[in-house]
Each structure stands twice: as C-alpha cells, then as structure tokens.
C-alpha cells in the first residue's frame, strides 16, 4: 500500500551552497504495506469497477421510483417540467432525474461521514500523531473489515486512515460530479454510483468509529457495557449546572469531560451535569457512563425549552439550524465548535477564554464559535457554572393554567395540522385546550417529532410545541429509562461462535434497528419491535436514535429491553453498537461472517463478499424513522453488500426503492457454484429496500427478509416458524407466498405441519428439484460447469 509521507528532520544543514536550519524533508509515500493477504480483484474500486455487481443486483431488485417533485430546478434551463413523459432541457426524464437526486442524497450522506472522520482525524493526529496504533483489543483481529474489503489496506495506525479517507474523498467527488448537468444519463448508472458512494460511506463510518475507539478508549466490543440513564426527565436535580451536547462529533465533549477532571469538578453529575442529544450523547457515554442521554434528535427543542440546559455545546450534523434562537429563547448560550456549522456566530476562537465567558454570561452574545476544542470545553464549563444561578432554569413551557390562555388565540384555521410532518390532529388539540381540555394536546407528545413546523405556520403565533410539552408535563417528568452504553464492534470471537448458526439459519436472523427519529408514531414502537425479535431469538443490534428509542419501551414488568436482554452478539442478544458511525460495525459483522467463519478472502474482494452476504447472511436493517441523507447512504450501502432494509412510511420520500417481483422467476435464479447450473431460489430475500406502513407489517417483513437460499432445512424451518407465526398474528392466516419459500417438506415448521401441508397441496406445490445449493451470482465462483 501507499504509506507516508516519510519525514526526515534536520536540525542544521551546512553545504557550500546551502545553510538551512530545522529542515524537514518529506519523501512522498512509500509502498510499505505488508502482504497480509494476497491482493483481491478490486482494490480501491473506481466508480465503475463494481458496476457489473450493481447491475446484477438491479436486475433482480429493480429501482422503483416515487418522485417527490415533478420538476428539475438544478440549472438555469429550468425549471423543467418532467411530467407525462417529458424530458428536461438537458435530456433527463423523471426516472433518471429521480435517480440523480438519490445519488446527490447518498453523496451528501457519504460526504458527511467522511468529513466527520476527516475532522476527527485532524484533531487526533495533532494530539497523538500519525503513528498512534490501531488496537481494537485482544478479541478483534479483523479490525477494519470495510477498509480491508474495499481498499485492501490493513490499517495499523491513525496515519494509515488518512490514505483511506483520501480514497473516500476522491470517490465522493467523482460521484457528485456525475450529477452535474450533462453527465450521467442512465437511471441504472446513477443507481450504480449511488451504491458505490454508499459503500464508501460505510468505509468512512468505519474510519470514524475506529478513530474514536482507539484514541478515546471507547469499549472495544465489550459484551457487558454498563447501563446509563436516558429520557427527557433524567435531570432530576436541576440545581446543578447542566451542559447539553448536541451533534455527532464527540471530540469537544471529550475535551469537556477531560477539562472537568483536570480542574477538579469531577465526573459528569458530580457538580456539573453533562447530558446529550443524538449521537454525541451515545459517544460521550462510551467515554464515561456518568454522562446522560436525553434522547434522539427529535428531543432538541422539547428539552431546550424546559430550560434545564445552562449551556448548549453543538458540534455537527442533525442539529436544528436555528438552534441559537431556540436556545436564546430560554437564555441558554450556545457554543458552536465545528467549521461545518457556524450558525452566523462570531468567531471567538482566538479571543481570551475569559472574554468569551464574559460575553456569553452577560448575554452580550447569544452564542460563540470556538473552533479550539480545548478552549470551547473550558468556556462551556465556566459559562455553565456562572450562568446557572442567573438563569434559574428559565423556561418557556407554560403552566397548565397558562395553556388555555395561550390557546385562546386559536382561530381553528387548521394551518398547524396541515404543517405537521406526522399529520397529527394539532388543530383539534389546541382548540380543545382553549376550552380547558388539555388531554388531546398531551396525547400528541409521543408522536410529535419536535420539528416546530406547526408553530412556524401558526398565523396567531401560538407556541404549540410548548403547549404540548406543558400538557404532557407529568409524562415527561417520568420519562426515565435505561440504555446500554454503545459497545462498538462485534468481536471476532463472537463471529466464530455464531457464524455457523446464522449462515445455516438456525439463528433466525440479525435485525438492525438504525437511523433517525422521524417515526410515524411513538419512538417506543422501535423498542416494541426490537423486544419482539430479541424474544424470538434473533440477534438484535441497534445504533443512533433507534438505539435510544428502544430504551423507551417497557415490558409488562416495567423493564427497558436493555434490562431484559444481554448485550452479546448471540441468540436473543440486544446490542447497542453505538452512534451513527458505528453502523459500519453492523455491516462489518456481516463481512466478518464471510471472512472469519466462511474463510472467504477479504482483501479487496467486494463482489464475492457481497454475494456471500446476500445469499447466506440472514440480516435485515430497519430504519423506522429514517430522515437524513446519511440514512439514505447507510441504507444504500447495506444494499450493495446484500443486506435488505425496511424503512418506515416517511422513508417513501427517499423516492427510490429496490423491489423484486416474485413473478419474475428468472430474476431469482442463481448459479449453483458446485454445478454451474442456474437454480431458482425463491424470493429470498424478496426486496432490497422497501417501505412498511405499520410496525405490524414491518415485523412480518423483517422475519421474511431474513430468509436466505443457503438456509438448511432446519434453519428454513426456524425462520418460517417466525414468519408464519407473525403473519398469522397480524394477518390471521397463512402467508400466500409459502409455496415459494418451502423448498421441501423438511422446511415446514413442525407446529404448522398439517396446516401448511394442506395449504401447499391446495396450491399445487411441488418440492424443489435441487433444494441444497451453493448459491452465487458470480460466474467466476463456479467450480464445475454443468
């Protein structure tokens, strides 16, 4: 691999023609990569290297488009009307334009994680140097499955990660360039590029999480990470200063905790509370579980308006863009620390600490941009201590008595309901509150995503979200749950133990609940689904906002799912993997199954590994509240690797799905690698990315999308047991597609034997001719030609 640049520093050099001091010579990059495995066929693939693989996938899982906008507004030819088969001035039709927008979204997602990793790496290289070792602990040998698989690099130091990011950045630029007017003109090729850049996204996420694991000492796949508090009501003692962290880049939060330790104010919670929202919250609890998690992205405004936070320190991604004004409404100063999100704040980076503190405490500034993280941390702590007694937890959530007064201005025009993301009956609730009934307002709390579109639209200026939170005050105050701290990667040792039962189907599947909090209903629905699958013996993994929302579900005994199920990657485990960037460990686990358990070559061998995962690893992602462009690229990256994904109903606004059609039997044929014959495998899995409308529908499809052609009869029987069981519970009968999924009589679950057999016979079912095959879409893997 490329390595370097190697540097030589010369204190003083004297020659007849030259006299130089402190001379540093960089000698470029050296090829120093050890041959840890023979290089595979596709090291550092370009944007077309894996195009054939993409087209194989897209032949079975054809892009399905639901345009979100009928126009193209991207160049000055436009706006172009693309309805009724019309093409725009550049020649694109609506299908291709929609695919183009998907690619833009995936580029944004991949760029965001890559830039996150890059920013963090800058910080860490300065702090620890390029030779800082990547040590993922004794139970992880394959430290970076994505990096190894895609780039062929086995990273050993932080410096090695620079080369990986260089490659990622180049690919993102190429993919984004393809969306320029007059470039790509085929929807399939746009999709191939979306798949490519989304694969890059997973590499970048892996870089980011490895960086923080090794540099900050986060858990390295610990099976039993501690539980920590989560919920809107967790800050019971509001007499202490409270610092709120929002975002995804944990570096500033780490500096804060280190500063607090250094100056003797102790751990979070001792004298100053440190609480977080979104992924920075996950990651700071990976550093110290004395920090607390308020909740997902949707809690930003809800929590800020309670007035509990004395300072808000915001880093990057998924932060409300008018955060400064929201915080100012409760006199909470904001400290922004990322170049990517400056919010128009004055750059105080080079000002003396005390001057910044003074400006924020006095209210002279609503917020400050402080790009020196050490300084930002010190300022945050000092401001919190000084501002807390002054603010006296100033809040703008009204009392119950004030609700009716504020609601009295409502003219019942309905504008708020029409602005609501979730189509909630906001107008009815405000109108009822006007008459003294606040129960309808309180009922909105769970499904309200806190976007403030209702307030923004209200012609009377009613602070609707504040009314909702006031009405739900009793519930909010008791919202205290337990979440397991993010554990990081799945261990190689765990993969060795469960690789076989997963691939053979005896562990019925790995279900990943990931993504944002734009849920169609209550966040705890994710917990209900996770609980159901963990109870059934699936391995359930979670990240980001979804990992938080799982905690909000309570079983009959009042326990959070994390208190019920162990954090091990094994049957019935429920694992909080970590923040968004930790998603790479979920897909990384699938890669490791192919590599560690099945001994498939890993190095630069993407197609073969993806082919293995698609046909053998019964995994399914669920992004129930997917909102961001990052979620688009994460999901599309899963798809290229052969992992199907279900999104919630808002996910339909991503505009594109990859759907199979069971009637098209030809598309569900693969090679049997043993004979070279083409064999029908049934719809396993039927779709690569789809939308479900309700949690019940989602649960049925989750079980179904874990079915793989490689399942043994015992494995298929187990998987069908769960599929049939859930289908019967929610649909009241046997699934119609059983004849396509039962290959032989031995596949039929014993508990449903007679019923299923009778059903199959009524459908004219016949056993498959070749039930046991070695499935592949890659001709080069055929061992003997038939």
């Amino acid at each position, binding site marked *: 691999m490329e390595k370097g640049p190697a540097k030589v520093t010369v204190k003083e050099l004297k020659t007849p023609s030259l006299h130089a001091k402190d001379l540093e010579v960089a000698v470029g990059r050296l090829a120093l990569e050890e041959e840890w495995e023979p290089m595979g066929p596709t090291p550092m693939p370009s944007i077309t290297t894996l195009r054939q693989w993409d087209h194989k996938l897209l032949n079975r899982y054809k892009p*399905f*488009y*639901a*345009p*979100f*906008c*009928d*126009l193209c507004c991207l160049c000055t030819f436009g706006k172009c*009307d*693309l*309805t*009724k*088969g019309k093409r725009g001035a550049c020649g694109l039709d*609506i*299908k291709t334009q929609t695919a183009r927008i998907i690619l833009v979204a995936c580029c944004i997602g991949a760029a965001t994680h890559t830039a996150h990793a890059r920013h963090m790496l800058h910080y860490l290289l300065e702090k620890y140097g390029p030779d800082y070792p990547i040590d993922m602990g004794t139970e992880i040998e394959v430290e970076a499955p994505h990096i190894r698989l895609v780039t062929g690099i086995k990273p050993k130091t932080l410096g090695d990660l620079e080369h990986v990011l260089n490659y990622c950045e180049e690919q993102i630029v190429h993919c984004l360039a393809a969306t320029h007017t007059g470039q790509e003109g085929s929807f399939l090729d746009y999709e191939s590029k979306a798949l490519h850049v989304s694969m890059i996204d997973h590499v970048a996420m892996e870089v980011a999480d490895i960086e923080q694991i090794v540099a900050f000492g986060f858990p390295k796949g610990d099976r039993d990470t501690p539980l920590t508090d989560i919920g809107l009501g967790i800050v019971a003692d509001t007499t202490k200063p409270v610092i709120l962290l929002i975002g995804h880049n944990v570096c500033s939060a780490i500096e804060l905790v280190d500063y607090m330790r250094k100056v003797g104010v102790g751990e979070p919670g001792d004298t100053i509370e440190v609480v977080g929202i979104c992924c920075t919250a996950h990651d700071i609890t990976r550093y110290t579980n004395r920090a607390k998690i308020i909740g997902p992205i949707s809690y930003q405004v809800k929590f800020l308006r309670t007035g509990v936070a004395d300072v808000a320190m915001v880093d990057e991604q998924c932060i409300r863009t008018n955060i400064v004004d929201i915080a100012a409404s409760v006199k909470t100063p904001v400290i922004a620390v990322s170049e990517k999100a400056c919010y128009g704040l004055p750059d105080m980076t080079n000002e003396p600490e005390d001057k910044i503190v003074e400006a924020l405490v006095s209210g002279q500034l609503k917020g400050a941009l402080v790009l020196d993280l050490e300084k930002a941390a010190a300022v945050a702590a000092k401001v919190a201590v000084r501002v807390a007694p002054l603010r006296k937890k100033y809040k703008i959530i009204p009392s119950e008595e004030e609700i009716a007064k504020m609601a009295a201005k409502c003219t019942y025009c309905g*504008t708020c309901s*029409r*602005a609501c993301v979730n*189509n909630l009956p906001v107008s009815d609730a405000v109108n009822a509150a006007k008459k003294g009934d606040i129960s309808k307002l309180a009922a909105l709390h769970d499904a309200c995503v806190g976007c403030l579109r209702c307030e923004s*639209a209200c012609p009377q200026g009613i602070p609707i979200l504040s009314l909702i939170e006031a009405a739900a005050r009793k519930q909010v105050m008791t919202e205290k749950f337990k979440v397991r701290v993010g554990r990081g990667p799945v261990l190689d040792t765990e993969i060795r133990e469960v690789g076989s039962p997963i691939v053979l189907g005896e562990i019925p599947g790995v279900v990943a609940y990931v993504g944002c909090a734009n849920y*169609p209903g209550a966040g705890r629905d994710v917990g209900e689904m996770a609980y159901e699958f963990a109870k059934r013996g699936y391995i359930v993994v979670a990240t980001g906002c979804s990992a938080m929302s799982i905690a909000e579900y309570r079983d009959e005994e009042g326990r959070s799912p994390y208190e019920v199920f162990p954090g091990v990657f094994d049957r019935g485990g429920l694992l909080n993997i970590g923040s968004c960037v930790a998603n790479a460990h979920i897909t990384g686990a699938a890669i490791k199954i192919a590599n560690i358990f099945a001994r498939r070559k890993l190095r630069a061998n993407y197609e073969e590994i993806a082919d293995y995962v698609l046909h053998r690893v019964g995994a399914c992602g669920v992004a129930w509240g997917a909102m961001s462009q990052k979620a688009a690229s994460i999901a599309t990256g899963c798809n290229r690797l052969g992992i199907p994904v279900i999104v919630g*109903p*808002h996910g*339909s*606004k991503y*505009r594109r*799905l990859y*759907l199979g*059609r069971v009637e098209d039997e030809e598309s569900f044929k693969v090679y049997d690698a043993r004979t070279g014959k083409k064999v029908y495998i049934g719809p396993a899995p039927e779709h690569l990315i*789809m*939308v*479900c*409308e*309700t949690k*019940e*529908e989602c649960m*049925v*499809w989750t079980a179904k999308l874990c079915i793989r052609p490689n399942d043994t009869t015992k494995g298929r029987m187990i998987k069908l047991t769960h599929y049939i069981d859930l289908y019967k519970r*929610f*649909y*009241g*009968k046997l699934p*119609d597609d059983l004849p396509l999924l039962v290959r032989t009589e031995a596949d039929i679950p014993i508990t449903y034997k007679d019923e299923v057999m009778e059903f199959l016979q009524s459908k004219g079912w016949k056993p498959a001719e070749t039930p046991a095959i070695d499935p592949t879409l890659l001709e080069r893997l055929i061992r003997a030609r038939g």
Partner: protein
Amino acid sequence: MSLLTPRASPWQWGNVPGPTMAMCPDNPPKVYATMIKRAKNPLLIVGSLVLEVQLGGKLLLDYAMEIAKRGNCTLIATAHTYKAFLERNFPAVPMTLVDIVNRLQDPNFTANPEKKPPHDLVLFLGIRYEFASQGLATLKHFAPHLRTMTLCKWYHPNASWSFPNVKDDEWQKLLDELIQALS
C-alpha cells in the same frame, strides 16, 4: 372543477409536486360514482387508517367494504388491515402498498384473475398521507394506463382526482353520498 382553492390545495402545504395536480370535482360523490361504475377493473387500496378512523360511529373499514362491494372493486388490504377483512369474511388481497403500486405500473397486471388487465381505476382510502402521496406519484408518472382517485379527507395533488380538504363531518357526508350514488 377547481384547482388550488383552499379546499383543493395540497393538504400538507409543502407537498406541491409541480404543474400537474389532481382534479377536484365540485360534486365528488356523483362524479366519482360515475367513473367507478364506468371502470372495467377498478381497484380499492386501503391502508392502516381504516382500522383507526371512526366516522359517525362507523369504522372507515366499513366504508371501504361498502364502496368496494357497490363499486365492484377488488380490495387490496395493505399494512396489517387484512385480518379485519378476513374476520368480516370480506374478500381482500393482502399486499404491501409498495408491492401493489409496483405491479400497477405494469399494464399486464391484474390483482383480480377474473378480470382482464389493466386496472383502469385505482382508489386510495385510509393510507397515511405522505405514503399515499408517494404511491400516487409513482402511478402518476409511470402508470399512464390508469387513473387514480383518493377518498381521504385530504387533497392529494398526485392523484388524478381527489376529494377536497374537509373536516370529518363533511368527509363522512362525502363517503355516504358516494355509497349512495354507487347503489
């Protein structure tokens, strides 16, 4: 006919797709009934709200059954609604919304083997607003052989024909009148 009046502007303010938006007839029940009766292979797709919404003490599901029966529509039960139809012994086809919409792009597809393809008229009822809107967008662009019609209380710009934005009491009246007109 009217376009972009307060009653016939996209229910969610921002959901303005472009220059082609749904027609909203002045007397929807009468116009709808005529079109449904004229259709050769009409399809009614229902979503999760048929299990949740009550109008005048009657479940939206009951309206769906009456419309399907009187309009001679094949009923597609999406989400987890199928069980409720099964319990009422009402013929329905269970399918996800994306699966049925995907197939409806194909003029050779019919969900009812007793009728010849294509489905020439597709009705939507009780599907979450944003999800229905996206399904309708697919059909608007990629299923030129059929027309779509929405029966919910929201104006759906991506449909061919839509009910206007109405409150529950007027919605109930519209549905009752439609059922009456189909008789």
